[in-house]
């Protein structure tokens, strides 16, 4: 019962008295336990959409339901795990203490200990290290462990591997899929990379910019569990091409209709 339903959501920001429409009538739903990817050009409102789902902002129009309830209820119930683009670890806490932060704040005893989560993301032995002693990829893994420690029903990830090199990134993707399957949460991943979107998701939502709209949806019918080899298959390439098609079709269209530009 923790699918995500977004109905007619518009988000406007006030910038020095001018109104900027970041998202315009977004309709999007993510079934329970599935993995969705959001892809689109920079500034199209991907991060904004995640923040709306996490109840960081409220939508200007429309409604969002997380498991049938408003996002605020889900947040206060500690049902949301969020992974930011930067790891955002607290530098004065050890790896273990960072992962345990949500537990301290919620004041609950979780089923899985921080140590178990640290093992899950493959960082056993680093429990007492400080974030500054870890590489970027390791820090991001700590952030994922922290997001998962309360077994959230919804896992929101904003370009979690954006700062990593290609090789580490693919390894992390495979690990993330394994973790996701074990935890059974509903996941949304924001990404800039087409192959990553196709590799990870059950469904890829393509957004267009100025203002952010849903340009199209590509269903990924690749079998799970997925491995890196899958990326060489013709089916994978075909899916990548359909995502690319939606992304760039929309752009040429946007150019021919200048009235849709920033207002």
């Amino acid at each position, binding site marked *: 019962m923790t699918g995500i339903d977004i109905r007619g959501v518009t988000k406007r920001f006030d910038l020095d008295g001018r109104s900027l429409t970041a998202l315009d009538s977004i309709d999007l739903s993510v079934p329970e336990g599935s993995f969705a990817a959001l892809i689109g050009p920079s500034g199209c409102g991907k991060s904004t959409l995640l923040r709306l789902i996490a109840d960081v902002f409220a939508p200007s129009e429309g409604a969002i339901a997380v498991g049938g309830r408003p996002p605020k209820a889900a947040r206060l119930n500690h049902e949301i795990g969020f992974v930011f683009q930067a790891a955002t670890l607290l530098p004065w806490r050890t790896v273990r203490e960072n992962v345990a932060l949500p537990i301290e704040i919620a004041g609950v005893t979780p089923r899985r200990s921080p140590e178990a989560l640290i093992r899950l993301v493959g960082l056993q032995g680093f429990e007492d290290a400080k974030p500054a002693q870890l590489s970027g990829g390791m820090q991001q893994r700590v952030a994922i462990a922290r997001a998962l420690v309360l077994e959230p029903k919804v896992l929101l990830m904003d370009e979690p591997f954006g700062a990593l090199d290609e090789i580490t990134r693919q390894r992390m993707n495979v690990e993330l899929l394994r973790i996701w399957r074990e935890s059974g949460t509903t996941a949304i991943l924001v990404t800039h990379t087409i192959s990553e979107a196709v590799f990870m998701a059950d469904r890829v939502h393509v957004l267009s910019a100025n203002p952010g709209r849903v340009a199209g949806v590509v269903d990924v019918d690749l079998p799970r569990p997925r491995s890196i080899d899958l990326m060489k298959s013709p089916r994978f390439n075909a899916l990548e091409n359909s995502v690319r098609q939606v992304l*760039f079709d929309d752009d040429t269209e946007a150019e021919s209709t200048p009235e849709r530009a920033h207002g």
Partner: protein
Amino acid sequence: MTSPVDTTVDTPDWRALPTRGQRAEARLAAFWRFISRVALGVGILVALWGGAIALFDVPIFVAPGPLDTWQAFVEQGDRLFGALGFTLTGVAIGLALAVAIALSLGVIFTLSAPASRAFMPLVIGLRTVPVLAVAPLLIMIFGRGQGTTVATVVIVGFFPIMVNAMRGFRSVSPTVHELFHVAGATWWQLLIKARIPFALPFFFTGLRVATTSALLSAMLAEWLSGAPGIGRLIYDALGYRDMPLMFAAVALSMATAFTIFGLATALERRLAR
């Protein structure tokens, strides 16, 4: 025609940069906001002061109200401004000397790495120390005249100017250094075309710090030494219980301090660009 791929790249638009006029306008607006805030603050202070004096019925030989103070200000204006002029002369001479000494030493230290390694830590260490503490000593050395005021201002102003100038001379980035080296520039060209321009913003910061503490230092020196400046006037007035004159002198020195502070800060902002 732009290719479709271009739209995924965020190209910053130079037209979004503020123009000179807009920047000047914004600065002016900020200036007036600051002035009006200060005026409001002073207004509230004066009102509180007058109200308290009236409410507690304080006699004039303890503390005068704003009106009595203003009267003293009008009646003894010559004396007040004469004393202020004496103090400000000392401040100006002291600051000029401090700049000259600090900059010459700064250039010497930049020239000579051993001298810099030996003396810079001492200079920086002395900066954490309240150098104003030496004022009584300066009085013993320079006696009861303008000399003590000037010496105090020099000694207080020297450290911030020197340390900031050194920081500035060093702020030339290694790549600029290499650029000048590759271009075959002489040491002198490096100083004129790179070190000094890079150091200017730092120098102005140092000058601002020195200037804002100069008035306090000068008044203190006068008060201790008995030189006929505004600092002495305040305590003379306190001594023979001419409270309106004392309050007028206090108000005048505070107004001067705020003006100097405002001018120095504004000048730093203007010139540090």
